[in-house]
């Protein structure tokens, strides 16, 4: 097989002719008849049922993945919101415990200087 280089950008007629002869198998008319007979049960432009189902399945899986992703994002943001925003009751309880000792908030009279000083020195 001398002749053109493998780099040649043009078809190699010698190799092409040899390959053509080696791959040709004859019986084209019989093959044509066979294809046309099989095509009798096929509607042009209409994919087979399993192909349609396959397409639907693909879309279904894609939709399910999108839904799952959206649900995950919503759930994650909802839990963050719950953590970031405590309830009103929790705020009151927390502030009551840390800012104002009960004896300061329970009395109606203003606290004396000694009481305030003592509460601030308590561990």
């Amino acid at each position, binding site marked *: 097989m001398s002749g053109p280089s493998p780099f040649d950008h043009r078809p190699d007629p010698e190799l092409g002719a040899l390959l053509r002869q*080696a791959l040709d198998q004859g019986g084209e008319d019989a093959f044509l008849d066979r294809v046309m007979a099989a095509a009798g049960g096929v509607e042009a432009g209409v994919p087979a049922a399993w192909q349609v189902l396959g397409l639907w399945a693909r879309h279904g899986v894609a939709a399910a993945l999108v839904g799952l992703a959206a649900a995950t994002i919503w759930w994650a943001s909802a839990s963050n919101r719950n953590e970031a925003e405590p309830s009103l009751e929790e705020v009151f309880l927390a502030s009551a415990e840390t800012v104002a000792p009960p004896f300061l908030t329970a009395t109606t009279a203003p606290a004396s200087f000694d009481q305030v000083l003592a509460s601030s020195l308590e561990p």
Partner: protein
Amino acid sequence: MRDAELAALAQAGDREAFGELVKRYTAGARRVARAVLGNPEDADDAAQDGFLAALRHLGRYDPNRPFGPWLLRIVANAATDRMRRRRVRAAEVIPVTMATGEPGPDQEADRSTLHEALRQALATLPERQRMAVVLFDVEGYTHGEIAEVLGIPVGTVRSHVFHGRRSLRGALAPWKDWKEDAP
């Protein structure tokens, strides 16, 4: 009539138009399928699958583009699918030899030997290289069209054609030397 017109008619249900398309592309489709599968019966099954799939999907064909590469892509995929299924189920060895016809005169036998050697050499190539060489050197498609058929970059097609040709020429070189030495 142009391929695109035949395709439009075939899509509208004109079986003669579809038959004309099949007739135009039968030889090429069978060769490509045989390059992939080796076995002529499997190749015909794959080529038929390809034609029927093309008929079902004619609505997806863009009439502004050449019909041949579009069709051959479907046929090549059908052949590749069949090859994959065969690999999965094949506990048996896939024969690369395809004896055809009866022994004839010497010249006929020589040609048969050459074809056999070429088929065997072709069978040793990776699938894409096989298809690239056949589509380029036998079917006359351009690198760009083959890239479309195989769904790979043009540069990769060039590389496949180069390596495929080199392997085939290497495999056939001893055979040709023998032919030239023969009286």
